[in-house]
């Protein structure tokens, strides 16, 4: 079992950048297949992973583009490997085709996106959170997605592991939405003992070889999986399909197949979504933050609390599925949400949706140079007090 390979888990305290920490997280999670196409600022992961590949019998292949990258990742996952890719905005755009196939074939895999300024080539060496909505809606058709937003090198390690576990548990692609700042930020990373790392195995079908139906799901709406080469001789297709995996293109099967894919995530929203609350209990003003900017938001809370202002920070650890319920509850208790983002308003719109007109919502567009500067948020808080 991959988990027991001691070389895969470098237990101890390290100084790593976010990219390196992500690679270590992937290896610790049992990921043994990485495919990627060179793109700034994702190279740190690839470099670390390829250096470590020999130690743990992992496979890396640099494909010809990001389209083939995710296709190869899906193939590797069906051959039984935990598989991932890393990229940035322009690459994520090319991956949308196979994000859809991954959802449709219910293929566990992890996509790490180091967000940079866009659209198009944008600014490769500047952090952003401009891919939040693409992660959710980028591929065509209806689907649900799981996406994590780490805010430190430590979380690049731990949330990459969580991403693998969620992707295996729900049989769906999972995204880690990082950014250019975290890719390069060197910080202390504590890697626990292998035995302390959670490992959710793939739900594996063990019945008779002629009895396997690829999409015959259990109560949790997740069907057990088999690997290519195990003798089940299964068929799967990206077309709307029945439980045998055969294409059946009618409204009934669409409902049975695709609506279930949506429901298998929606039914589990409370178990998937994770938020971190910093002094929210008595707050009048809640900063709603995620990713790198949540660090700045915590600094703001620390600063303004000293001045007696009741401000807290609600940080999204998973941005998808969105924690609708918590935000709705909170909107009834507080006066103002402040939503700082490194884009022109993406999560802001989601907060509006969940707010039901209850609280006032202030959006702050954060520029790269201000990423670690609390002042833009502090200024808004001061204005609110006037």
């Amino acid at each position, binding site marked *: 079992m991959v988990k027991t390979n001691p070389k895969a888990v470098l237990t101890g305290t390290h100084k790593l950048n976010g990219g390196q920490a992500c690679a270590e997280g992937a290896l610790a999670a049992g990921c043994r297949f990485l495919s990627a196409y060179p793109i700034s600022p994702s190279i740190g992961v690839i470099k670390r992973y390829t250096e470590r590949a*020999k130690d743990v019998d992992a496979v890396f292949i640099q494909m*010809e583009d990001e389209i*083939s990258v995710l*296709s190869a990742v899906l193939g590797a996952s069906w051959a039984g490997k935990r598989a991932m890719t890393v990229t940035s905005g322009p690459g994520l755009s090319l991956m949308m085709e196979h994000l859809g196939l991954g959802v449709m074939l219910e293929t566990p895999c992890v996509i790490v996106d180091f967000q940079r300024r866009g659209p198009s080539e944008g600014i490769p060496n500047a952090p952003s959170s401009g891919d939040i909505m693409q992660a959710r809606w980028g591929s065509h058709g209806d689907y649900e997605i799981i996406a994590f937003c780490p805010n430190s090198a430590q979380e690049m390690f731990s949330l990459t592991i969580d991403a693998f576990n969620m992707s295996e548990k729900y049989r769906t692609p999972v995204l880690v939405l990082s950014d250019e700042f975290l890719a390069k930020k060197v910080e202390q990373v504590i890697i626990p003992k292998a035995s302390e790392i959670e490992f959710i195995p793939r739900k594996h079908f063990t019945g008779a070889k002629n009895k396997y139906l690829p999409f015959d799901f259990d109560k949790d709406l997740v069907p057990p999986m088999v690997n290519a*080469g195990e003798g089940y001789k*299964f068929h*799967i*297709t990206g077309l709307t399909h029945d439980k045998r995996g055969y294409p059946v293109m009618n409204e009934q099967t669409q409902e049975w197949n695709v609506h279930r894919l949506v429901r298998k995530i929606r039914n589990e929203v409370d178990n998937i979504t994770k938020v971190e609350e910093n002094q929210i209990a008595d707050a009048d003003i809640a900063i709603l933050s995620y990713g790198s900017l949540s660090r700045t938001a915590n600094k703001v809370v620390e600063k303004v609390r000293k001045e007696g202002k009741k401000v807290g920070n609600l940080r999204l650890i998973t941005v998808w599925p969105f924690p609708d319920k918590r935000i709705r509850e909170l909107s009834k208790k507080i006066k103002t949400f402040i939503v700082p983002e490194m884009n022109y308003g993406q999560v802001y719109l989601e907060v509006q949706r969940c707010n039901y007109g209850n609280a006032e919502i202030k959006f702050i567009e954060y520029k790269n140079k201000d990423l670690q500067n609390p002042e833009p948020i502090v200024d808004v808080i001061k204005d609110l007090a006037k």
Partner: protein
Amino acid sequence: MKEIKHPMDFYLRMDRIPHIWCPGCGIGLVASAFVAAMEKAKLDEEKVSVVSGIGCTGRFAGYIKLDSFHTTHGRAIPFATGLKLANPELKVVVVSGDGDLVSIGGNHLIHAARRNIDMTVVCVNNFIYAMTGGQVAPTTPLTAYTTTSPYGNFEPPSNIPQIVEAAGAVYVARWTALHIRRLTNSIYEALNKPGFSFVEVISPCAQYYSRINRLGDGLDMMKFYHENSVIKHGESTDNLHIDYQKEIIVGKFVDRERPTYIESYKKWLGK
């Protein structure tokens, strides 16, 4: 009464028959040749994966009773690459059409051949996008009519064997759907060849290609292949261009050795 099964049924998903292919189509013949080659090759069929893209030939995987994957348009080769690298014990076969492999998937075709990934690619070339109603393809011969070249095609077509040889394929052959025995043998050889092996099959599309060009039905196309195909083993792939209703050179053109991707990868790992 005892049910009698055809020996080919072993490799076919009989619960999916009847298939979707039109009368006169050549893809079914390729399926028979593939199954016959599988039988001859005596591979461990539990370790064989068939991957297809999208289109008429894209449906191939769906009728073959092996681990079979119907993926996205043009991306069967990268999907198969992932399967093979994640589990080198697998034998991976890609069966797809000309539009899928050479147009939208052209980049993947070139790079898989360059890397010499262990896989067999069977490309069914019917000169047209048939599933969507007969549009011009990168393989449509000059002057041929299609629904999107109503005044005759003026784009020079791809010479697929030349492309894959130049990219690095170790085995390249071409037959028509008429040459069922030779095609079977080529697929058999390709399955046994380490590295990237490629077999092109010129195949009739009676529904679109031959109808719009008034070339008759599937049988007429077969007669045309019979009268106009010339076997030239070892012919330079530079000479394999296909002109409209002119001779079609078939045969085995390339059979050479190069280190496969996995061999090289293991060497790099020191294993």
